């Protein structure tokens, strides 16, 4: 029809101006826009967290009031969870990569993909509108506090409800794309592990999100009509709200982490020049996690007043989920065995992911053990555990992806050396922020506390100083990324997977001819020593 059929034109050059981006159906442009959006929200929520940490430099009021503090941690949690990390890697890199990896010209429902993005924008806007009278419930909206607090709960929950549709529609799009659009020869056991992870994530998005949707709708009903399901004063049950909420929010943890795991599975083989170790185990454990993660939500509620029997059941199943995760960690490690390992910035982030995620996972064992959780629940131990998984895991995975696919996305290279300096600062800063919090929590420092006892001061201060290093590292990373140095080859890392076998940046229609796949995505190394 028009010039976009010109195959030589890459997706970045095909059309200029706001309209050509905001109304595009090109999955690559949508992926890039999601990346921008989550980046902006990440910075917003990070600023909130810096203020929170600054407040803790001394006990009592340091810079902000108690009410502002409560608003800030709610804002930090809600924006980080619903605007940044849930759409996060799946929507940005999922959109950019899945069609390239499966050898398709786009996702199966390109227009729906655009609508999902619009819905995401609308939901974010609604959620942020609530800043006019900011909410102080915490991102978990526990009843009955959220029913009777005077703040803008309805607007925020409605925003989350709308965002849910974006999540669901993106999930449907990815699942159906992977069923219907894989290139000839790209069988399920040749599919890149990032796609497997995205598939498992999409399943969770499609099946878990509606439950939180109805829960938040009912919460709105509680506030408007006084429905009473979650209000003890009306014969309802606040713990039931927690059941409904965590039925979504526990699988949501895996919505956040699985795509990052997928990224690690892509990056490590490339920089080790080895096939991924235990392809099937990693692929199936993604699926296993997706299925079992629906069975463990109650481990967020061991001290909530849940019955003893159900606590025990949830504890057992929780330990069952720990196993597939352990398998993945060792498989990634063993991929490097006898390889040819190059420590690029992307690889450094991936290796840091393995280490930090191991700590995050192991500290989960403390929380899964019933008697220990009684002590540790709702303390800083949980805060530290969660951030080791979410930052040490997801965010490090995202940074790895940003560096790894940078040449493919922008057609340019960044300064590797500077990127490694930024990595070092981020890694050190992160650990200084969050490791002391494990100790704080074990000593009994509760979370969501504006004020704290003087004996916790040293560790709190240490943690706050860490945020400054982390912040500097993050700014330096952005600086490095915004200053490209020279053009990129189509395949600077000599990867064998499909998305690198095309020009950088990719042409608008991806493939002139749909490719036929004949080998595995991880076809590295010589076959002499295969299978002892």
């Amino acid at each position, binding site marked *: 029809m028009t010039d976009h059929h010109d195959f030589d034109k890459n997706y970045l050059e095909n059309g200029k101006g706001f309209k050509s981006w905001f109304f595009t159906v090109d999955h690559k442009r949508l992926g890039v826009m999601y990346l921008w959006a989550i980046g902006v929200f990440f910075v917003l929520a990070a600023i909130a967290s810096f203020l929170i940490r600054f407040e803790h430099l001394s006990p009592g009021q340091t810079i902000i009031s108690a009410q502002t503090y409560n608003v800030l941690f709610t804002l930090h949690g809600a924006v980080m969870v619903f605007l940044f990390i849930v759409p996060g890697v799946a929507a940005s890199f999922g959109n950019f990569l899945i069609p390239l990896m499966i050898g398709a010209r786009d996702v199966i429902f390109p227009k729906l993909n655009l609508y999902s993005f619009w819905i995401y924008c609308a939901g974010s806007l609604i959620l942020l509108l609530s800043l006019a009278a900011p909410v102080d419930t915490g991102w978990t909206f526990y009843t009955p506090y959220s029913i009777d607090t005077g703040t803008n709960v309805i607007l925020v929950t409605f925003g989350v409800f709308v965002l849910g549709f974006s999540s669901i529609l993106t999930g449907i799009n990815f699942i159906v794309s992977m069923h219907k659009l894989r290139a000839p020869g790209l069988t399920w056991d040749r599919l890149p592990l990032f796609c497997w992870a995205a598939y498992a994530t999409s399943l969770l998005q499609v099946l878990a999100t509606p439950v939180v949707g109805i829960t938040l709708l009912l919460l709105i009903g509680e506030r408007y009509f006084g429905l009473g399901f979650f209000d003890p004063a009306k014969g309802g049950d606040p*713990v039931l709200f927690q059941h409904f909420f965590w039925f979504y929010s526990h699988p949501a943890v895996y919505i956040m982490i699985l795509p990052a795991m997928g990224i690690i599975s892509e990056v490590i083989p490339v920089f080790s020049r080895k096939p991924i170790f235990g392809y099937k185990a990693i692929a199936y454990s993604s699926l296993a996690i997706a299925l079992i993660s629906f069975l463990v939500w109650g481990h967020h509620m061991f001290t909530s007043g849940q019955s*003893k029997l159900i606590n025990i059941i949830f504890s057992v199943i929780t330990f069952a989920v720990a196993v597939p995760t352990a398998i993945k960690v060792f498989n990634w490690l063993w991929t490097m065995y006898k390889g040819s390992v190059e420590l690029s910035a992307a690889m450094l982030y991936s290796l840091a992911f393995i280490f930090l995620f191991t700590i995050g996972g192991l500290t989960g064992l403390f929380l899964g053990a019933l008697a220990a959780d009684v002590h540790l629940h709702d303390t800083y131990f949980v805060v530290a555990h969660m951030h080791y998984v979410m930052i040490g895991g997801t965010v490090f995975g995202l940074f790895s992806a940003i560096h790894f696919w940078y040449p493919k996305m922008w057609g340019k290279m960044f300064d590797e050396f500077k990127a490694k300096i930024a990595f070092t600062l981020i890694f050190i800063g992160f650990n200084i922020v969050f490791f002391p919090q494990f100790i704080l929590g074990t000593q009994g420092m509760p979370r969501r506390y504006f004020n704290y006892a003087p004996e916790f001061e040293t560790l709190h201060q240490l943690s706050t100083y860490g945020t400054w290093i982390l912040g500097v590292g993050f700014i330096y990373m952005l600086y490095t990324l915004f200053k490209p140095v020279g053009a990129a080859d189509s395949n600077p890392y000599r990867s064998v997977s499909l998305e690198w076998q095309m020009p950088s940046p990719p042409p608008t229609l991806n493939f002139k001819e749909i490719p036929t796949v004949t080998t595995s995505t991880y076809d590295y190394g010589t076959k002499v020593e295969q299978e002892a």
Partner: protein
Amino acid sequence: MASANPYKTYLNIWLLLMFLTFITVYAAEFDFGALNVPIALLIASVKAGVVALHFMHLKYEDSMTWIFAIYPLFLLFLLIAFSATDIFTRVAN
């Protein structure tokens, strides 16, 4: 994809559904005690199954569609089973 005379089949199915609706209402006249809900749910499920299989053509769909049609039912069961287990085993500990 449809059978020889789909309109006739649909009409039969519709008549069956009407009959089942009548049974549901009629059965509610009697008190079966604890069986009231299971009976109502059983009839409703038969109706739902008929609608899904014939009107929604689930009969002709591939196994993937079947999985996506049935798996949410399993999740719904989990949601109810676990939260009910909690609420009805809360003896004083």
